[in-house]
């Protein structure tokens, strides 16, 4: 009934035939490829998949096997310090500890030094959002309106720079690596820049523009957990200070899991470390600032190399091998069924 009233009045013009077009689309006769699961296609697809996965898997496993990695849990080894840090009133007391370890063989190639945290839920919903990207981009924004709460301003109204829970809880241990070579201790040269993503360093994080950093951050205060203001993060290197400090940038890239590692330093390949880390005794000197006992966390320091397929995690290779095997086996199963049924009866028409 509706269309009766809604159709506009038509004059008595010659109406074209209402016969529908005889086009392939309208008649649903478009040329179409109809893939059909015949025994040949099925078997070949299974076997091909199987073969491909197996070969890729083997390659991956081989390449991850060449990764050398050493991981040291220093949360217990520095138990004194951790006890000290349990009480937050001792925040300005320094605490150092050292951890010795031995490399049985050389670690060749680029060696990366990570710090690892366990049970630190950087991916917590309210934690993840607690930052102000605009502020980190050097813009003068009202962080009251950002997601930084409750780490936005102090009671007196001084804004925090950087604001938010992520920045506030930044990992602030310092770890140095020493190579004990015949009773002489050589500090392993470590690179503290170039560890973050290029785009982060150059695009996403910018310091506020001013003639020098301290004036740029004038009128702001450090986050409550920090020991020094943001413009003193790296006093040696102007281009690694303030918001564009690599350690800070890396920390701000919140980790996906509660147990994670972040790149801390890279071994600078000079002098005796030109090929990597030679075998021998090493010591980590750690300035222990970051409390983990509160959340039953642990802290690690990790030395590792990387290959094209990532780190030491062999999972991808295993996954390939397993699924390759599964596909191949399935192929055999189908062949078996097929042969058995064909013998029995001509169920299958070619």
């Amino acid at each position: 009934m509706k269309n009766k009233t809604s159709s506009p009045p038509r004059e008595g013009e010659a109406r074209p035939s209402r016969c529908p077009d005889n086009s392939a689309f309208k008649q649903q006769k478009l040329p179409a490829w109809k893939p059909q699961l015949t025994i040949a296609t099925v078997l070949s697809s299974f076997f091909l998949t199987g073969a491909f996965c197996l070969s890729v898997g083997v390659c991956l496993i081989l390449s991850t096997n060449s990764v050398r990695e050493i991981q040291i849990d220093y949360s217990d080894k520095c138990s004194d310090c951790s006890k000290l840090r349990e009480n937050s009133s001792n925040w300005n007391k320094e605490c150092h500890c050292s951890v010795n370890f031995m490399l049985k063989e050389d670690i060749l190639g680029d060696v990366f030094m990570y710090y690892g945290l366990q049970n630190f839920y950087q991916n917590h919903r309210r934690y993840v959002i607690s930052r102000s990207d605009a502020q980190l981009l050097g813009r003068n924004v009202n962080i009251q309106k950002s997601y930084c709460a409750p780490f936005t301003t102090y009671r007196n109204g001084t804004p925090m720079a950087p604001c938010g829970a992520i920045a506030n809880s930044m990992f602030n241990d310092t770890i140095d690596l020493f190579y004990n070579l015949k009773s002489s201790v050589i500090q392993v040269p470590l690179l503290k820049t170039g560890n973050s993503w290029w785009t982060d360093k150059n695009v996403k994080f910018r310091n506020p523009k001013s003639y020098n950093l301290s004036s740029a951050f004038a009128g702001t205060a450090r986050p409550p957990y920090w020991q020094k203001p943001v413009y003193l993060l790296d006093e040696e290197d102007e281009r690694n200070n303030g918001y564009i400090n690599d350690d800070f940038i890396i920390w701000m890239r919140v980790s996906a899991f509660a147990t994670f590692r972040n790149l801390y330093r890279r071994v600078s390949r000079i002098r005796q470390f030109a090929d990597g880390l030679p075998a021998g005794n090493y010591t980590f000197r750690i300035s222990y600032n970051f409390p983990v006992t509160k959340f039953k966390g642990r802290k690690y320091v990790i030395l590792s190399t990387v290959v094209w397929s990532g780190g030491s995690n062999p999972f991808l290779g295993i996954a390939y091998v397993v699924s390759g095997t599964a596909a191949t086996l399935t192929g055999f199963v189908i062949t078996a069924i097929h042969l058995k049924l064909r013998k029995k009866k001509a169920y299958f028409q070619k």
Partner: protein
Amino acid sequence: MALSVDSALYRWQRLGAESPSQTLSESTPLLFSVRDRPKLNLNKWRIVFPNNGRQWKDWKQASAFYSGNRIQTTKYTWFTFLPQNLFEQFHRLGNLYFFFLVVLNWFPQVEVFHREIAMLPLIVVLLASMSKDAIEDYRKYRFDKTINFSKTRVYDKEERAYVEKCWKDVRVGDFVQLQCNETIPADILLLYSSDQNGICHLETANLDGETNLKQRQVVMGFSSQNTLFEPEFFQNTIICEMPNNDLNKFKGYMEQPNHERIGFNIESLLLRGCTIRNTEAAIGIVIYAGHETKAMLNNSGPRYKRSKIERRMNTDIFLCVGLLFVMCLVGAVGHGIWTGNFSEHPPYDVPDENGNFLSPVLAGFYMFLTMIILLQLVKLGQVFLIHNDIDLYDEEADLPIQCRALNITEDLGQIQYIFSDKTGTLTENKMVFRRCTVDGIEFSHQENARRLETHKELDLDDEDFAKLQHFTLPPMNIERPATYKQRTMRPLRRCQSARAHFQGHTRNRSLGRCDSNQSQVAFSSTIEKDVTPDSRLLRHVREAALQTENLSPFVHMKTSTSLTDFFLALAICNTVLVSTATEPRQRVTVPPPIKPSGITLEKIHQIFQRLKLASLSQSFSSSQSSSDLGTSFSAKNTEGHLAALDCCDNDDCCASGRGDELQGKGSTDIGSASLDEVFKSVTNSSLPTDFCYEAESPDEAALVYAAQAYSFTLVSRTPEQVTVRLPQGTLLTFDILYTLGFDSVRKRMSVVVRHPLTKEIVVYTKGADSVIMDLLEDSAKADISAKKRMKRIKEKTQKHLDYYARDGLRTLCIAKKVLNEDDFQKWANFRREAEAAIDNRDELLMETAQHLETKLTLLGATGIEDRLQDRVPDTIAALREAGIQIWVLTGDKQETAVNIAYSCKLLNQRDTVFTINTENKETCESVLNLTLEEVRKNYEVEKPRRKIFGIIPTSFSASEAPSPEFGLVIDGRTLNVIFQGGLEEKFLALTKHCRSVLCCRSTPLQKSMVVKLVRRQLKVMTLSIGDGANDVSMIQAADVGIGISGQEGMQAVMASDFAISRFKHLKKLLLVHGHWCYARLAKMVIYFFYKNVNYVSLLFWYQFFCGFSGSTMIDYWQMIFFNLFFTSMPPLLFGVLDRDFSAETLLGLPELYKNGQNSEIYKLSTFIITMLDAFYQSLICFFVPYLMYEDSDIDVFSFGNPINTISLLTILLHQALEMKTWTVFHVVTMTGSVVFYLVFSLIYNAACVVCNPPTNPYWIMEKQLSDPTFYLLCLITPVIALLPRFFIFALRGTFGPSVILKAQQLDKLPKGQQDLEIQKLRSGKQTTSGASVASPASNDDLDQNISHLCVSPFLHPVAAAVSHGDTEGQGLSASEVNALRKRTPEGGYYFFNRWAEEEGTATGSSAGPFSGHYPLVPSRVTTPGQDGGKLTKDSAKNFNHGSHRRSVSAVTL
């Protein structure tokens, strides 16, 4: 029934006394207290005062209560649009759910998403449908505006003239002047028509699609007819009923200042939206305006139907919401446990501004939103494709299929029961006169039958057809000119009919005269118009004609009189409108007075000369009595003028041509001498032109054409007069005193005429034989010989009628009655009173009609063939093979219905048919019980056999083997008993075992009740198909209603969900489109669930690693876009275009339809399996990357990005696995989706540094794309995720159900081979099934000669049973029958027998109808002999009542 005159009189007086007193008290307060008036009356009656100078005050007061003529069909106004639309949209469950989520998101405690982002998808969806609604509404608004501002002429009391006014300014009580071809602005009571007889012609195409003209009459007895109507003098008050939507009922009266009342009815009401035709001017008073008009009240708008899938889906949505709830619960509990692990809050558990720590409950899972809108889109696409199917296009009517309901396409694929109307649905509803019987003599019309046969073969091949006619029927060349004319006209008509059909949807068509010229002439195919007369009958008629000429006309000589009467009745007793072929819309109404204008003297001279010659030759050939000559001459005179007038009406120049033509014919005729020739020439010459008859029912037209074939030509008809030309050329004009129209209760119609010669008052009645036979005159009064004769005639006629019905013909009895003047006057008084009554007027009218139609004299009966539509048996067979139960619900009589059922293979010759006709509840119950028992017994016998075959895993296993086939025939009365007696369950249990069910003589209400019963009790999907107004209720009751846009107007189409033009289209519509739509949509819905569950679970798994804090690893935008854009196109395309099998395969193997019937694609098990698969896949998609990145320095979004990508790939590949056909579109959208995802991500990740706080996926995609592990990850994860599914697919694809497998293989074959294979498959199946039943005869072969054909179906029960036992091995054994008999002592009619169809009936041309093997002696002859003693009173009553109704071939217990 036999209501005596006196008692009727009493009743009348009583009513007459009551009704005024009633109405007085109600209506007269008008005159007393002005104050109370509106309140008191307006609730019950509508009182209309004329809007003229005199009654202006009253008018003003009253019309304030009535709505104006402005219409507003828009749903919204500017102000209400937003709230109202939103309100409506939130009726959808999905929208409400999302709104709930959004609202939750506004609470910071549970905020997961960025508030604004959370709203976005909802807003997109809402906006999309909102804009759609807005555009639709705006269109309506514009349309309303054009309507409201169209002009009409309304009487202005100040200017005392008609002035132009907009439609919207028309008020109730206004006088409106309408001109020809104007559209009527409101419901108007007709007060004046320029037509002499006060008739105004209407075209109601806008209302009901019927293009034939309707007549409307100025209020009867309203005096100011002949003078020009002057509104100022109109002082009557009109009182009528309140506005209602019944288009066919309206009553009221007009109260004159002297308190005299004039009744009127719908015949005087001009309905809004109709168009005035053939009437120069009409004036009326507005009764209802605007939204109160009947047309607007009928405009109820489309219904919202919800498909089965949608209903299923809603429950599953609840399941999914439940799932979400569980997820949230897990999150909440998990979070509690997680926080319990810490003695104090860790640094990463960030409190809110006020230092409170929050427990996130909502994990922000967005599901199903896009699904709802995409489903709508897919359905639109499906509808578009169905609409464009060229196979469903009817060339003749230029009509493609109309999809009126947009959201139930998939229901077409799940139909389990079809309820079909018979007439017009299975049959053409093109009535062809086939046979008649007059005075107990049957005229078989062999030639006509032969002509119909050849007609079928030649298929309207004009040339051959003409030749054939010429060839076979040399003596009948009267017909030739007519044929010739029709032939030349036909192409024109074809295109007219093409135009006419869509008019139901247009409005305001301003059709000029030439336009109306093109309009369709209803029921005018050659088949119907040409009736080749039976030579024997023709001879009789001629003899009769000669006799009547010789003797004084119409004085006895029994046969001739009844012959003449018979044909007169055929010609008169109807409501056919006559128009001329040259100008179809120009009605031939009155033989008009001579009008000298427009025609030259010379022409008149010519005509007169011609007429003189003709009549001279006539009088020469047949010594005509002078009086007769006089009439004939005068008649011809007028006739000639008629022709002339017709000419000048058309065109001046046409007249000269016509004159020449006449002249030419005349000159040739003079030369010829033979009687025949002269006879013919007279007929021809006086034929002004070819007449076209427009009838309300095609039967009537067929009868008039039949009468015409015997030269009883209906020349003109007005409400007062009807003119018929007799074979001898005389024109007889009958005064019509009354016309008692047809109704389904009386099942008859009558006209009361005054014979022009004898001045007798004659009632001609025609109607269903069951009714007429009861009303025949008691033979007691007449003398003995006449009595015997009457009885014999009656018996013979009954016999013939039985035979006709067996032959599948529609039968009508023709009867007459002569009234004497006194009786008539008495009756006429009642009738007038009845017409004026307002209260229970219909009953009164009915009573008067019944009172008149008694003591009739039988004249004869006719058999009209309703031809089966093209390819109906084929369609029914295919649908049945598809597992659809087909029921036929018809108002027709049992015999006709059963015969049609046989001829369309609804019933098989070998089927056991149970017939239940009873009015008694107990009988009915026991009969049902017995039948049920019987059927079950058979069923059980069959079962073990089936099992044996079921084991064998042949491709088309014996599960297809035909169980014993039963048919059930039941009539309306029995249905009533069943419904009232609570026997529904038994009835349904019985029908479940029956292959087909026929319900005869059922009313529309019963039809819908049956549909509802089956639908509710059996919980099946039902489809109703019908073409007429009587099917509307049935169409609306079913899940899917299909209307056939055929002969009977548009009501069925208006009520339907789909409108097709032929029954055969149902096959493709269901088997192909239904299957496709169902398969597509079901798969799509399943896929949507899969997709959403899959994706949402990804987020859920992450909760276990983020302390159940509700954080997400995927950027919000990408997450929202994922559903909205990245993965929406392929399923959309899939839903519109996927074809699991080709159309040819689906048509070739109807059993593929069962797939949808059993909801195999989308049912709980598939749903659960899909859900499990979705969980598995999401586990893989999450944990493979998780294990891969575990313990690494991966950040949140770098972890989420590969997951997002992987799940995109998995979801798309999953879709690819589901897709059966890959067209270019599929490939493009598939790759396009992936490419779009990558491009979007790249751009978004590169362009947006801080645009979307607090999340920031800057440069992530770029970084990952440069990482080889990302690619390796994206490669392996979908493989692992889809491997199980692919494995199952592979197994199913190679070792799966063989029908599907085979069908798939068929699809691959080239066209020709495919057909061959389908043939092979089908034949193979036939043999296997045949073998499994071990039936001696192959299935449905009509031509085959079964041995029991010659066995009378009215055998002694034992004999019948034995014979069946012998021939079929399925029948009852004798003992069983006996047992049955014992158990039904009350002896209700319990028929069960095999219908033994005589093969000779259809082709019984050579032997004639009664050549021996037709056992017409009805069962009652044999029954009393067997069981008469046992009959109780009850059944005896049944028996009497049904005496004229032939009991079908049956064993009576």
